[in-house]
């Protein structure tokens, strides 16, 4: 199988603090891989490294990020920018802050399509309407005339999904795209993401903290904690027979609507402490290792 995205031993630090400590993961063509972790695990940093959107004080200390066999970190900025939005797209978490509040939906979609696909304005408008219809927006012509604040949260997320798949990307990074949505809307949005993936043939790196969402949409998953990959494998295996104690603890701490209350077991604080201690030990090793 060919990998669309291959991250190898990625180390990222912000100032003196390490946020990614040797992350390796592969996303195969057309697959959906979940990247799971709690806050502070570094899961958003992976996406930000790919997009070149790391915070100002961040530095990539080591590692490689290959997209379709080309080293993203080594290529000239201009070349990388040519890939972003076209070959690698993003579905962001917060649709309110990712759309320009003072421009109509139509103008924003047209700008994207003209930039990346070189369409005429007329053709871009038609394509934008088609894309909105694909994500089950009723009356696309009307929605194109609206401003972001005139749409509901679910509707805005649909627009962003349409934009992410607009140029038939090879890879879509979905960064907690359903976290802010109601459950019934979340289900519809997940269904749409899956349908768009099938239609446009993209692979997805699905960043989330929600094991339920991973179970439903991801074929494989990577569990991240303190910037380290703790577990990696097909979703069906990891959720049924988790190898790492942390994955087991997370599953036991996830409230389930189908189980009575006493089934819930909080994550033992000692486990979290020992994981951080391991991470710090790793930091010392890498710091003292001769270059």
């Amino acid at each position, binding site marked *: 199988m060919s990998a669309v995205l291959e991250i190898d031993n990625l180390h990222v630090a912000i100032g003196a603090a390490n946020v990614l400590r040797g992350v390796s993961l592969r996303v195969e063509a057309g697959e959906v891989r979940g990247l799971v972790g*709690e*806050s502070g695990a570094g899961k958003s940093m992976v996406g930000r490294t790919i997009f070149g959107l790391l915070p100002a004080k961040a530095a990539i200390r080591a590692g490689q990020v290959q997209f379709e066999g080309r080293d993203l970190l080594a290529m000239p900025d201009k070349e990388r920018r040519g890939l972003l939005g076209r070959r690698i797209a993003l579905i962001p978490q917060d649709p309110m802050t990712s759309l320009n509040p003072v421009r109509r939906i139509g103008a924003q979609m047209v700008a994207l399509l003209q930039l990346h696909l070189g369409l005429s304005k007329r053709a871009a408008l038609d394509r934008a309407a088609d894309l909105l219809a694909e994500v*089950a927006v*009723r009356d696309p012509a009307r929605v194109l005339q609206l401003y972001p604040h005139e749409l509901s*949260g679910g509707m805005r997320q649909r627009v962003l999904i349409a934009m992410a798949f607009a140029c038939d990307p090879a890879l879509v990074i979905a960064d907690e795209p359903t976290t802010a949505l*109601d*459950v*019934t*809307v*979340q*289900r*519809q949005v*997940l*269904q*749409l993401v*899956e*349908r768009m993936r099938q239609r446009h043939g993209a692979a997805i790196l699905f960043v989330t*903290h*929600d*094991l*339920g*969402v*991973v*179970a*439903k*949409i991801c074929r494989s998953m990577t569990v991240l904690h303190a910037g380290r990959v703790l577990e990696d494998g097909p*979703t*069906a295996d990891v*959720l*049924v027979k988790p190898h790492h104690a942390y994955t087991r*603890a*997370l*599953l036991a*701490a*996830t*409230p*389930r*609507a*189908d*189980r*009575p*209350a006493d089934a*819930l*077991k*909080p*994550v033992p604080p000692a486990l*979290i402490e020992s994981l951080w201690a391991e991470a710090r030990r790793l930091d010392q090793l890498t710091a003292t290792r001769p270059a």
Partner: protein
Amino acid sequence: MSDILLRTGQLGFAYPARSTSPFGKPVMRDVIKSVDLAVPRGAVLGLVGESGSGKTTLGRLLVRLLEPTSGGIQFDGTEISHLSEAALRPLRARIQMIFQDPQSSLNPRLPLAVTLTRQLEVYGRLKGRRDRRDRAAALLDLVGLPTAFVDRYPHELSGGQRQRAGIARALALQPDFIVADEIVSGLDVSTQAHILMLLKELRAKLGLTVVFISHDLSVIRVLCDEVAILRGGEVVEHGPVGRIFSHPQHAYTRQLLAAIPLPDVEPGWLDDPPSRQQPQQQGSAA
């Protein structure tokens, strides 16, 4: 003493909506429509609904942060719907609220010792500076935080610790009724489970009666004895947690349950064609 601590009868709340003409009569928009609830003493009632269902408004009515526009609320036998602030004052000590975002509900410029004991001060139950620190330390201990945190400021705490502090503040006056509004929604799974266990423990230890508002049915199942499902300002279904989860009667309850992604691989979960609007009926819940 009745065994129902809080009861609402046809409780309603409406606010004037924007009217089409500045001279037209303001049209009232109903946010809460004729809600009948009874919360038994010592029970935890879950209020579930999606955004816009009115769950937060209902919670604010129950603690009388809002005044109902119709119907009534009886707290421990007293009709409180239209009591004045002065008349409410003695009851306020018994009714507390815990807010969703402790980051914005704890004063960032005050150490926890002051924030946690402010209400004790207002009700004249503090005996000097020494007492303030002791009482604050006892409250911190009650919610599983180190007593040394009395001198800390909210920004020095993690999200889970801040939520514990929010709970500690609500317990200061030893209330018997608490409304908790989405208090675990912003937390990580590992932190969330600890807060849920803490609430269970406190409720047993202190004999609290709780209304727990959440959009998350899984969390409701962990904590609540009874649950009321809210939609468009109306209670569509109400009953013991076990019954609602195993035999939901209303189509909307079934739809909510079916939409929860359980952490099990389930081929076909994504296959239903996404509908163009909220499906009115869809009942494939197990």
